[in-house]
């Protein structure tokens, strides 16, 4: 029995010691910081009230005046637009590309957006929407819309980033859904076809329900990504102009390393972490199923 404990320690302790010191402790410390003032005195929820009522986080005036709406609202908007688009596009492309010669090559091309560093992804988004070089403007001119750098204007900066990030992220949902489609037994489809089911009916009654486990994973990972988005905003707009494309992760950085306010930045970090933990609850549940 003692030797077994020795082996457990040998395998598990070095890794988790590092995680404990450089991940768990910092997280705990951030939570503590969010309840302290700059002198280290406990102030309860004061920092939270201050942050949540600040215009950088939620800007109610924006509702009538337009962007900025505040980093928190911007993240929610990001989710509201990016999540359904990447899910739908990924599913449609996965189904479509199965029947296309060279579908694997197309998938690899779409997946490139996932492979590049996101700091490069941000540059690419700026490039796509640039006034002179952006292909987006070339298309828009066909419809008579005059060219402009879409990421440079408060009313379109955030939307341009969100649509650009769809371009970056669809590779993920496409590849996962493609892998998922492979797991659906072929005879299910054959039986449905024998019964005379329409293609649409087969899609809604067989494909979508069978892909449910994949959908959970794709939704979770996409939500996590939307909440954590930082690099592309930093390099493309720095949250600007005038905060019009600011997001929580960037605001945390600005509080901490530009304004040197570690307490307010801790609040943003804690709020962000609570959201990501909430989002990953389904994954924790699969763990519980594993154990039983």
């Amino acid at each position, binding site marked *: 029995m003692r030797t077994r404990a020795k082996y457990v320690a040998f395998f598990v302790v070095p890794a988790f010691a590092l*995680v404990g010191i450089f991940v768990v402790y910092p997280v705990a410390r951030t939570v503590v910081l969010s309840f302290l003032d700059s002198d280290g005195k406990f102030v309860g929820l004061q920092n939270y009230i201050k942050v949540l009522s600040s215009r950088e986080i939620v800007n109610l005036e924006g509702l009538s005046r337009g962007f900025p709406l505040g980093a928190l609202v911007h993240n929610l908007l990001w989710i509201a637009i990016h999540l359904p688009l990447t899910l739908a596009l990924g599913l449609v492309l996965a189904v479509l590309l199965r029947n296309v010669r060279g579908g694997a090559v197309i998938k690899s091309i779409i997946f490139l957006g996932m492979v590049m560093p996101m700091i490069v992804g941000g540059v690419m988004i700026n490039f796509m929407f640039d006034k002179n070089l952006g292909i987006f403007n070339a298309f828009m001119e066909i419809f008579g819309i005059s060219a402009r750098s879409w990421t440079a204007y408060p009313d379109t900066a955030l939307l341009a980033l969100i649509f650009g990030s769809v371009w970056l992220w669809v590779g993920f949902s496409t590849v996962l859904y493609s892998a998922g489609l492979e797991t659906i037994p072929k005879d299910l489809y054959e039986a449905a076809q024998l019964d005379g089911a329409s293609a649409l009916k087969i899609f809604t009654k067989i494909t979508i329900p069978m892909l449910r486990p994949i959908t959970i994973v794709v939704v979770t990972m996409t939500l996590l990504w939307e909440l954590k988005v930082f690099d592309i905003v930093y390099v493309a707009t720095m949250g600007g102009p005038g905060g019009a494309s600011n997001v929580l992760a960037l605001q945390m950085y600005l509080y901490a390393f530009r304004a040197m306010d570690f307490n307010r930045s801790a609040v943003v970090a*804690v709020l962000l972490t609570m959201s990501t933990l909430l989002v990953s609850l389904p994954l924790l549940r699969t763990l519980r199923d594993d154990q039983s």
Partner: protein
Amino acid sequence: MKPKAMLVSLLGWLVALVWILPFMGVFMTAIRPLDELLNGWWNFQTFRPTISNFSGAWNHPTAALSRGMLNSLIVAVPATLLPLFLATMAGYGLSRYKFRLRTPLLALVIIALALPQQTIAVPIFQMMNALNLVDTYLGLIIVHTAWGIPWIAFFMRNFFTTIPKAMEEAARIDGASDITIFFKVVLPLAMPAIGSAFALQFTWVWSDFFLALILIYSPDKLLATQRIPLMRGVYHVDWGLLSSAAILVMVVPIVVYLILQRYYIRGMVGWSLK
């Protein structure tokens, strides 16, 4: 049926075109002189390719990518191998032994997967400051290692639960210790999974921006990703330079992806599908 199949193929390749256009644009912008781009990079009335933008980015006076890419490599190699080694052992431990802390540790791993890096940023900066490791690669490598361990451990643990224990038990009957079994029997079997984890962790460390941003600040120590935002001109965006820099920095993970594509996708799918 035939025209329909063709229509589907056409649609598929149209999508591919939309996805590849920005890459072509960045590439054309990088290899063409500025005066040719004024009517759009898709305009080919004249075409005089040049590598001056690439050499400009490579030897940039304040943010040379030659140095940046070397720095990124110096960080990425140990920051990939170290967590890979430690987390493979941890993943094996979590899959083969039942002990009281096992489920809590697994839960911790999943929680760590969800954490944003912003949550550790300030305390990490303060700790590294206290340890005199701010603006050193050692500090950054340690943080990358700790940050990479949870997902690799989880991924490897899931892999180990799928491989049969028969060979390990046979070795045990022959009198081999658990540690010998791990290194002699299990590790060789685990190479495909380790390959997947390697491809992903290397790509992520190479692509990382945030941790480098908060820990590394000396101009000559900046990593490749940190030099990209510095490539923008002051008064206007120098797209030729910026495009070349973008291509140079993304080429490394794309090459890793193309070489290890099978492992890469399996890692992505396997890791996500638990």
